[in-house]
């Protein structure tokens, strides 16, 4: 859908729904929220709902950063210590690479 044609209240509603939806372990949704509403929140000339949209976009960006940090940490730890953890690592693994590491 094109945001140009949508009235402001609906934009706010959409932004808020995306923000709330992201709490269901969906940082990707927060990313979409930030990218999609960035222009609406920061570039466009001010309108009544813009303040709220800005808050949502900022909070989505914050949540996204937190998730990215957490995931990066976990992935780094896993990839580094996978071989050492032995059985636990195998239990956690979806695919196990073949060959000599």
């Amino acid at each position, binding site marked *: *859908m094109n945001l140009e044609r949508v009235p402001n209240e609906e934009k706010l509603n959409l932004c808020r729904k995306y923000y709330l939806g992201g709490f269901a372990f969906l940082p990707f949704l927060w990313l979409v929220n930030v990218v999609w509403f960035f222009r609406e929140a920061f570039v466009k000339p001010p309108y009544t709902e813009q303040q709220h949209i800005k808050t949502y976009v900022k909070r989505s960006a914050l949540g996204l950063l937190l998730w990215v940090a957490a995931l990066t940490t976990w992935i780094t730890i896993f*990839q580094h210590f996978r071989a050492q953890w032995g059985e636990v690592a195998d239990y956690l693994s979806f*695919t196990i690479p073949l060959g000599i590491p």
Partner: protein
Amino acid sequence: MNTSDSEEEFYNERTALVSSESPTMATYTQDSQLPGPADTETKEGASSRLARGTAEREPAVESEDEELTLKYGAKHVIMLFVPVTLCMVVVVATIKSVSFYTEKNGQQLIYTPFTEDTPSVGQRLLNSVLNTIIMISVIVVMTIFLVVLYKYRCYKFIHGWLILSSLMLLFWFSFMYLGEVFKTYNVAMDYPTLVMIIWNFGAVGMICIHWKGPLQLQQAYLIVISALMALVFIKYLPEWSAWVILGAISVYDLIAVLSPKGPLRMLVETAQERNEPIFPALIYSCKRTIEYSLPVSEGTVSLPFSDEETPQSNGEGLERSQEEPENQAFMGRNRTYSAEEEEERGVKLGLGDFIFYSVLVGKAAATGGDWNTTLACFVAILIGLCLTLLLLAIFKKALPALPISITFGLVFYFSTDNLVRPFMDSLAAHQFYI
């Protein structure tokens, strides 16, 4: 894992080319004095009404409108090239790199029960023809079922089916795909990260396709699910059956969309009468200047695929069958859809079309000799798409997108594989450059 049944359904629905707004808009504007989008037809209608008083202005206005139609037509062709190319590129890249999709381990869809592992050529041909007949009849039945459902306004049923289909497609097939890609590249992946990835991908996909989301993301998801579906088909259809099915489905497409009693045509006409958009997730639409986006009709790529996928689960037999008709019907619907969204400008192409184009190019990449064949098929399909869109601009009604492209694709595949390739090989062997 046996992919299944509903895949066929997907075929049907998906292979529909929705004509651009031109055709339906024209009838619409003539019927009512709608301001509507600045459609060429609208302009034509309005201008011709105005011009009644001033007869001399008519020729100028009409030629302007024609020019605009052609210009929009050209833009639409370009706009459709990109997604079709992307889908094909994804499929070919996967086929060439991930060997899973080219391995035949004897598993087949239940729609193609006859095996091709027969001693004689005649027997193999017969089996593939029988497979095709079964598949096409399933598709026809499904389409008719879908049209009936639509006519009797069982919208909830259809929606539920579509949602189940897309769930299956977005979660299960992408899970399989990711697994194979990781195995190919020998990457270690743990379950928590994987669950996060699949969950995010699937959930955002469902939101974008069935509810509201940014247009580019929706288009991207549609392309991805078309590619996933095409890959499943390439894996589970036996060799000769796949080619015969491609041919047969183009013929079916032609009949279903153009003949007056064709199910797809009836679907489109019913949708037009009720002035409703076609269900989302069945059509891909490239919107350009969108004056006002109608909820459903926008770029929905048909999810016929999803239907196919759902058969995977055992208890879904009933659902699958339901989905199938939808798929088929939707494919047709997608074609004519554009008329309903009066403000949308942009041609719509059914997801089934994407899928079958990708199946053709993917099979050429998997079984053809080298890149020449693949490229030839790719070019053939694009040329066919151009011609189809040209016809769309001329006739201004829903048209089947499969026949011309698939015919060119098949002709190019077989001739390149059997004539051009040996020729090029001998030239290279003798170091003779032309």
